């Protein structure tokens, strides 16, 4: 027994833990350091370019530090791009997100969903460039789409679907809908089915169940869906060039940025446009998310079960 007390006493006397032990208590040890390479990488190649770009935007080729921004907002050729992009992004986002709801409502009742979800993942994997090329041929005046419409007598001469707003909009829906659909589906299936069952025993028909139970619980997820979808459609680039009218109706803000960087070699202006682009996205995302804070955002299960 005395040997035990002897060995305990010195430890008890030295109350201060070593630095290593104290750090470990706060969660910092060798394992935590494993996160450093990735963190350094992201800071170096993501955060730093942003900061660099922001600083660069304030160092225009000519004029004072705000010259680039002033130039952007005084030339219609430049500031109209915001409107053109919004005119594409907002309807596409709304269409994709809204239609995803009824489709997801139906698909969640399916047993063999995997085939459908696999098919819908294809546009995402193919990417926007291939979709642009494909639609150029398919929706072209000689393409099958127009041919079928003429065959059924719906139109008499080919409808102009490429190299204009319509083509880009269709490509945004083709590549965007799978995203919104899969996301909405995952939110819907996360809602406890017994909630709808309970509502129906209390007299709620399908419509009432949708509006009183499902939509309120889906709302926060839908807000996220809207944000992600909007951010994606707002950055449309290859489709706007290949499938749209890049000098006209579909001159989107990414084209303006690209031209500043690679055609005019004015990297300061290009950074400015990229900053403005990011800023517009930020405003709209913030607006959507502030609406989200008014709805219930907790767990969607029905209780301790």
């Amino acid at each position, binding site marked *: 027994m005395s040997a035990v007390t002897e060995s305990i006493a010195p430890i008890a006397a030295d109350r201060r833990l070593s630095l290593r032990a104290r750090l470990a208590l706060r*969660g910092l040890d060798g394992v935590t350091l494993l996160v450093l390479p990735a963190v350094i990488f*992201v800071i170096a*190649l993501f*955060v730093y370019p942003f900061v660099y770009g922001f600083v660069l935007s304030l160092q225009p080729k000519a004029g004072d530090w705000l010259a680039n921004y002033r130039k952007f907002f005084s030339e219609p050729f430049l500031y109209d791009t915001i409107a053109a992009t919004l005119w594409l992004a907002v309807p596409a986002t709304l269409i994709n997100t809204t239609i995803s709801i009824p489709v997801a409502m139906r*698909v969640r009742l399916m047993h063999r969903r995997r085939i459908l979800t696999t098919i819908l993942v294809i546009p995402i994997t193919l990417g926007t460039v291939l979709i642009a090329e494909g639609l150029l041929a398919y929706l072209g005046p000689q393409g099958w789409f127009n041919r079928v419409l003429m065959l059924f007598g719906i139109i008499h001469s080919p409808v102009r679907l490429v190299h204009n707003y319509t083509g880009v909009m269709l490509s945004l829906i083709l590549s965007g809908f799978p995203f919104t659909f899969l996301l909405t589906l*995952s939110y819907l299936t996360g809602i406890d089915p017994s909630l709808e069952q309970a509502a129906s025993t209390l007299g709620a028909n399908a419509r009432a169940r949708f509006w009183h139970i499902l939509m309120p619980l889906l709302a926060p997820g839908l807000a996220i869906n809207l944000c992600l979808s909007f*951010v994606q459609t707002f*950055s449309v680039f290859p489709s706007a060039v290949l499938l749209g009218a890049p000098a006209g109706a579909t001159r989107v803000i990414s084209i303006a940025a690209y031209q500043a960087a690679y055609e005019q070699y004015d990297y300061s202006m290009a950074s400015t446009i990229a900053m403005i682009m990011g800023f517009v996205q930020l405003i709209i995302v913030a607006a959507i998310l502030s609406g989200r804070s008014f709805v219930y955002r907790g767990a969607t299960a029905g209780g301790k079960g």
Partner: protein
Amino acid sequence: MTRDKSLTERLWAITIWALVVFFIVNLVAMVATVVVNSFGTRWLGTWLPPAFTTRWYVSAWSEFQLDDVLIVTFEIVGAVVLLSGLLGVPAAYALARREFPGKKFVTLLFLLPLIIPPITFGIPLATVLYQAGFAGNMSGVILANLVPTVPFVVLVMIPFIEQIDPRIESAARVFGAGTGRLFVHILIPLLAPGILAALLLVLVRTIAMFELTFFTAGPTSQTLVVALYYAVYAAGVRAGQSIDAMAVIYMVTTLVWLLIALRFVDPTQIVTRAKREATR
């Protein structure tokens, strides 16, 4: 849940299914157009080309130097896959197993490159790489593509790591394994399916990643998708069929890897894994 069988319910169901079918039919038709065109001799003004040939593939191969492009593409994609795994998996481990001050900030740091689209940060990134001399060759393209893929690997791997009982690791440490041997003998074998899934997803995403490569590539470091873009862009000069032949080669490449990835991964994870983390 008993399904409502009234007439309005039935009509509504039919409409929705019609929409879905319409979407899929158009998708398939679009892909078919590209494929058929690539095999047709000439195709103008008729439902199908009058005859079929494979010569466009031969001409596209040499015209677009597809052998070089494919090699470059796979070198870049391979490097991106490898490096994002090396950087991302240990970082995911640290995030899954440790609570440290600033963890929320680090998580946000990994989330941003996934939420913010490549164009928005692509141009400033290209500018920086250009200043540093990396732009215009393969190293620049690899670095640029790593920016969204490293966080992707981190966010996909965290749930996989959380699934492993920490007591297994404690047991290994009790028996004398340091962190290095812990990884090699215990973690990597257990995480192998997860790592494989994550890296396959990175592979598929990088093959299709357009904007970042477009902004940082030089003439000898273009991936297949960028070469395709340039071909379509200058389409007036070249025959449409050979462009479509190239497009088919691109499609086959992505879809083959997609199918392989799908053996290990649920399709929805390609979309929702990273985005779900954003809602936490």
